[in-house]
């Protein structure tokens, strides 16, 4: 156990930053407003530094949870303030910490006050509030990844809904036809769905506690919420679920995570929320907040309820397969750029969930890498789309055409984001998508084969989007477009660099993830299916002498 509470500090920094930012005096001029925005940006960069320290100090192959902190909180009910990270949590915290400053910089003017008729600005804290809310979301998300106490996780899992609600409902996308009622509807829908999921999960959380209490698990036998204690008790046989109870609890947890992820058919809140939110907030939703859902499936569903996970696994695989194809088909049919990307994300979440429940090393490592890569690729595509939309003030694909001619750098970066979204080999998402496919195929060949249809459909919606917006004759409204400027380039360059780097050399990330995947595989008592006709040692030796390697 580390003496310095690094994990707490990494989460507390954005939380404190959020409060400070909100408390700054309201800006009276554009310059003051920039200062008010620089503080939260600086804090998010510091958080990134701390996240990098966490990643560097993390020893792959060491203890399962590292940098742990334990403090009893409500000891009477066995609720503890327990933090700790495994490899999966480390890479997701890093993803969050990378994306938040990028999103802030991309959204720099998204919450600026609009001049009233007199040409003056209303003096209020709205702008800095936007940035404070982003930091608040970051703090909650990071704590969700760090929590190793089920109740603590539940608190943060639910608490992040509040800042997200205000971000979606309070800061709309300033485009033509933007409708405050639509936005409010989207925000409430987001909240309703996630709240419903959360309440059902709450019931399951209580149920879990009741069972541990009944069976005398925990420090004084009064029940516990501590993940490690429960999993150890399960492994040693001290804790035993009746099959019915385990299934019910699994479904309670899974429902909440499936709403958040989202898994078909619980997905319909996502296109509304992403369509109405600003591009930056849409990135927060799909690239960061939703990842808590898929992460929690790996962390809680599989660890706490291994048998139920195996029982329901095939059914969830079928739902995720439907999600892959359904999301992609819906993306093809969209007229609105942001909704198209939202449906593409639904398809991608299908891949992630499929990888988790295929119960193979490749599937789960692939799913974890997929969470990271999808975060980066969607951020690249969506933020560049946001730059595009800010130039024309429209979300409709049909309002664009020929942008490539007037803004080649914008078009080029949009293309790279798109190619990453369709998982082009050489870019990061290919690695994770192929791992998920191969990991699924080795256990469920039919599902793996059908899922490959997703790679054709992904090419379809990406290339149709690119063709309609970027190629063809230059539309008059487009002809005055400015190419990407410095701030926008600073936003997309690191994302593209990461996509290339992790496509060519994903080993640093997979090395961190692999031990955690091994642990999860042993939690669910699963081993990878062995090859039907493995190559023999003699054949390997023969090949190695040629230098071919395996």
């Amino acid at each position: 156990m580390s003496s310095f509470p690094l994990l707490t500090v990494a989460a507390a920094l954005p939380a404190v930053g959020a409060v400070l930012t909100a408390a700054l005096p309201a800006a009276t001029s554009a310059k003051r407003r920039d200062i008010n925005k620089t503080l939260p940006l600086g804090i998010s960069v510091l958080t990134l530094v701390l996240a990098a320290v966490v990643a560097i100090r993390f020893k792959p192959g060491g203890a399962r949870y590292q940098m742990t902190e334990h403090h009893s909180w409500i000891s009477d009910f066995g609720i503890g303030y327990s933090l700790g990270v495994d490899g999966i949590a480390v890479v997701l915290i890093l993803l969050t910490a990378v994306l938040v400053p990028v999103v802030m910089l991309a959204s720099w003017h998204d919450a600026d006050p609009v001049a009233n008729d007199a040409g003056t600005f209303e003096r209020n804290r709205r702008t800095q509030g936007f940035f404070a809310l982003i930091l608040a979301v970051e703090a909650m998300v990071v704590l969700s990844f760090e929590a190793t106490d089920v109740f603590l996780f539940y608190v943060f899992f639910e608490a992040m809904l509040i800042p997200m609600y205000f971000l979606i409902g309070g800061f709309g996308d300033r485009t033509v036809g933007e409708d405050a009622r639509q936005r409010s509807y989207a925000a409430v829908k987001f909240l309703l769905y996630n709240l419903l999921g959360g309440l059902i999960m709450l019931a399951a959380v209580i149920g879990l506690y009741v069972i541990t209490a009944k069976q005398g698990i925990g420090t004084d036998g009064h029940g516990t919420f501590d993940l490690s204690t429960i999993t150890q008790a399960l492994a040693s046989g001290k804790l035993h679920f009746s099959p019915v109870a385990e299934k019910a609890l699994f479904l309670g947890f899974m429902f909440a995570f499936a709403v958040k992820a989202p898994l078909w058919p619980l997905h319909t809140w996502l296109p509304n929320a992403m369509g109405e939110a600003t591009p930056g907030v849409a990135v927060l939703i799909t690239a960061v907040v939703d990842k808590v859902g898929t992460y929690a499936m790996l962390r809680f569903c599989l660890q706490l309820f291994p048998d139920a996970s195996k029982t329901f696994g095939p059914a969830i695989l079928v739902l995720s397969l439907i999600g892959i194809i359904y999301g992609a088909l819906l993306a093809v049919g969209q007229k609105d750029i942001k909704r198209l990307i939202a449906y593409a994300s639904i398809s991608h979440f299908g891949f992630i969930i499929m990888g988790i429940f295929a119960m193979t090393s490749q599937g789960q490592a692939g799913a974890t890498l997929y969470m990271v890569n999808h975060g980066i690729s969607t951020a690249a595509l969506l933020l560049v789309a946001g730059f595009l939309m800010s130039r024309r003030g429209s979300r409709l694909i049909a309002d664009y055409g020929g942008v490539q001619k007037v803004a080649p750098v914008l078009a080029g970066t949009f293309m790279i984001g798109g190619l990453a979204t369709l998982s082009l080999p050489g870019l990061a998402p290919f690695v994770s998508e192929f791992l998920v496919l191969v990991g699924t195929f080795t256990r469920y060949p039919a599902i793996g084969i059908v899922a490959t249809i997703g790679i054709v459909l992904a090419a379809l919606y990406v290339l149709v989007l690119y063709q309609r917006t970027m190629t063809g004759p230059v539309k008059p409204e487009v002809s005055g477009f400015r190419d990407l400027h410095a701030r926008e380039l600073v936003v997309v360059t690191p994302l593209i660099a990461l996509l290339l780097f992790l496509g060519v050399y994903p080993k640093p990330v997979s090395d961190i993830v692999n031990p955690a995947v091994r642990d999860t595989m042993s939690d669910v008592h699963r081993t990878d299916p062995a090859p039907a006709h493995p190559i023999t040692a003699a054949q390997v030796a023969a090949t190695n002498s040629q230098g071919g390697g395996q």
Partner: protein
Amino acid sequence: MDNLIPVLVGLPLAGAAVLLLGGRRLDRFGHWLGVLASTASFGVGLVLFFDMLSRSTAQRPAFEHLFTWVPVAGFQAQVGFQLDQLSVVFVLLITGVGSLIHLYSVGYMAHDERRRRFFGYLNLFLAAMLLLVLADNYLLLYVGWEGVGLASYLLIGFWQHKPSAATAAKKAFLVNRVGDIGLSVAIMLMFSTFGTFAFGPVFGAAHTASQGTLTGIGLMLLLAACGKSAQVPLQSWLGDAMEGPTPVSALIHAATMVTAGVYLITRSSAVFNLAPTAQLATVCVGAVTLLFGAIVGCAKDDIKKALAGSTMSQIGYMVMAAGLGPIGYVFAIMHLVTHGFFKAGLFLGAGSVMHGMNDEVDMRRYGGLRKHMPLTFVTFGLGYLAIIGFPGLSGYFSKDKIIEAAFAHGGTEGWILGTAALVGAAVTAFYMTRVMLMTFFGEKRWQPDAEGHEPHPHESPSTMGIPMVVLAVGSVGAGALFAWNSSFVKWLTPVTGHDEGHSPLSSWTVSGITFAVIALGVLVAWTMYGRQPVQATPPVGSLLTRAARRDLLQDDFNHVVLVGGGQHLTRFLVYLDAKGFDGVVNGIAAAVGGTSGRMRKLQNGYVRSYALSMFGGALVLVATTLLMRAV
């Protein structure tokens, strides 16, 4: 020496990076940088080739492992290269023809303001294509496979302000993605069967796998090959791909990328040899495509589309030969190389004609050009003689061998395949003579272009002329060189194996019959397009001609079945998603909240009630816990 192998890929990759990221300051000399990267890679290829020549047969294959790419439990993907007798042939073809076409493009694209970007894409293509043929495992091959697809997409759509170009580019990528399903599934099958997808181990262990698995892998690889090599049923993109600049058609859509399918099948010979069903499917695909492409080639008035039909048909020959097994592998690759010379030469010739004719592509508006463009006429003419298989020229040595191998396959199958190959040869002679006559002979049928400029056909600059001459030399001499002392067969046999087979007809008989049918094709074409003047507007034509003009209705079929069906499906799903799933949820919400007005009120006060419910939840939790402790 082996550590030079990655340099082959690295040089054009670096060229692409510099050209695409370098910005406008490279505009002045960027194209020469592209040429340099390409020729330097060719130079390295030559060094490696001569080094390989100097070694004994067993020592020739070279391996170079760079780093571990994706390690997850049993799944160990490596970045490693393999340079053997087969890949070195491709390296020389790709970088050699590639360098010539880079040089040609300096002249051809001289007036294009985005020339630097064009060379960046060309270099990117070279890097990806070299990666494809140098990879030592299927997953890395996949990267090159998609990389060439990307370069092809970017170059077909290079003039993307033209909607037709943008559409053609998208179509090529999409059809290829269907083929990619095949490659993905093949790799997954290999992994689940052998626990690896590296060439050496898979080929070594292939005999241990079941017949069904091997057939599955073979058929999936064939699907991939069909996409990349424009074979039936995934052929529809190649004709449209002619929207790209002509050097692109020559390099990517004639000489190199489209032949990647043949490489894939030949490289996987260890799998195909053990999967007769997959081989049968391969020869069927090849035979059907060689006839399909030839028929389409007969009906096209667009010179590039006529050549595209021809490319499809010639690759059909190669795929058929590869499907024949050890009888055919060597000749498939030999025809691939000679075709690389003469078809690239023909395309460059067509580009030269277009260059002199205000970018006109309709052969009905050419005519009598031999006097105005003598160099183009001679080089194109030599390419023409090579492709129809005129004795002594390149195509004669490679195509006759494939026809012979088809007969040598034996049995009824052998007769069917041999006959198909002969019919294809006759039709090839017909459509190529037609192209030749309509373009270079007969009366002038020139017409002013859309802006009213009269064409003034002139010979092209030397940057374009030199590559045409070099390729013409290859079209004439390469076949004889390869056939001399069976050098090509001997070179490749250690990789692909070779079997003479037992042809029911003697070599001379096959040659004789082939020459007769070629003469027949030429004669028919001459009666139709030489003896009588060519009409400036196409005649209505027979039912077959009209179908062939529409690519034998491939697009009509795709449009009705795939595009139409797909659009209806997505529209229905969009409707369902909005009305169905959402409707149910909204309905429940409305039922709970009463009217929509009350719904809104609920929305406004929602956060408060949410906080309340969280508070309520916590209360329930505390109550339950207390209760549990009491029990």
